[in-house]
């Protein structure tokens, strides 16, 4: 099983088309690193991206330097995955 310890999902609220375009640029800057769960669409829709632990510092710096407001939707993906597995095992028992 791939392990996602420390990976986070950031929820970004882009204010305008310019910020949406910045997020698309970010995807290009980090090929195969960022995993958009909700891709950049339009200003009134949140953008969710899974950021590997190793990329968190860079990505957060990018967002902050461009005034992109974000929150941490999932603080550690592996914690939720472990809970999901435990729930399946419990149900099976």
């Amino acid at each position, binding site marked *: *099983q791939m392990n996602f310890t420390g990976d986070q999902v950031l*929820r970004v609220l882009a204010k305008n088309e310019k910020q949406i375009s910045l997020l698309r640029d970010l995807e290009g800057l980090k090929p195969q690193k960022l*995993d958009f*769960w*909700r891709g950049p669409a339009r200003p009134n829709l949140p953008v969710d991206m899974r950021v590997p632990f190793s990329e968190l510092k860079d990505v957060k710096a990018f967002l902050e330097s461009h005034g992109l407001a974000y929150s941490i*939707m999932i603080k550690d*993906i592996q914690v939720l*995955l472990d809970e999901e597995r435990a729930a399946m095992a419990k149900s099976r028992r």
Partner: protein
Amino acid sequence: LERSTSSFSYSSYHTLEEIYSWIDNLVTEYSDIVSKIQIGHSFENRSILVLKFSTGGSQRPAIWIDSGIHSREWITHATGIWTAKKIVSEYGKDRMLTNILNTTDIFMEIVSNPDGFAFTHSMNRLWRKNKSNRPGVFCLGVDLNRNWRSGFGGNGSNDNPCSETYHGPYPHSEPEVAAIVDFITAHGNVKLLISIHSYSQMLMYPYGHSLEPISNQEELYSVAKDAVQALYEVHGIKYIYGSISTTLYLASGITVDWAYDSGIKYAFSFELRDTGRYGFLLPATQIIPTAQETWVAIRTIMEHTQNHPY
């Protein structure tokens, strides 16, 4: 493995083997109304199974519902399973559903991407695509919702095999997509297609590959509005609705665009829950409420389709 559909837990997530075993149990227990059809094999040679709900007749108009085309969207398979059980349980009780099944067949493909789904259990919970690979191509998988002919390769899809929205080498190149295309084309009388995705609470209709409104825009908008309102009344979950390209973003080579271009006027795509906390990792405790609200929306759309034959 569970030996009956009543001991099966509808409020937890299941493996591919458990789901396929449940399908066999469902067909055995409700053989008067549901049967199983194998419409093809996946890239890794897994069976691609479709449930057929029918009370007889031949060449009846039909409704197609698929879930799980993006494998990490586990809530969609779980909702499909609950919905299938609901259909067999409600036939004979729910007057509207009974009327539909007395004149219409319902086809449900619960695991539309079996290889990807198995992979989310074995190696990578966050896998989205199928598992195809081609000589000389380093990355695995095609996005099965970018591989359909309509608008293939256009905006909102990617020609990079390592991208999550890679559209594949050519339209319908993927066996999982080709199986559905062949089945629906051969059937020739599908009147409604619903493709279930997650997440972000949206109900959408064509087009994704173009901003041009479809000719039935007003009607589908109105149906979506009614369905979303009915869904909201169940658990208070708010959806937005509209065409894919105006509600979300341009996305080319997608199921509902192909369906609409193939003459299936009623073509809808759901994006189920999350409400902003769990994304694809929606806790199993939300499976049944999600399925309940989704069923009411699907029922609303089916009723409109039934009342507006074409």
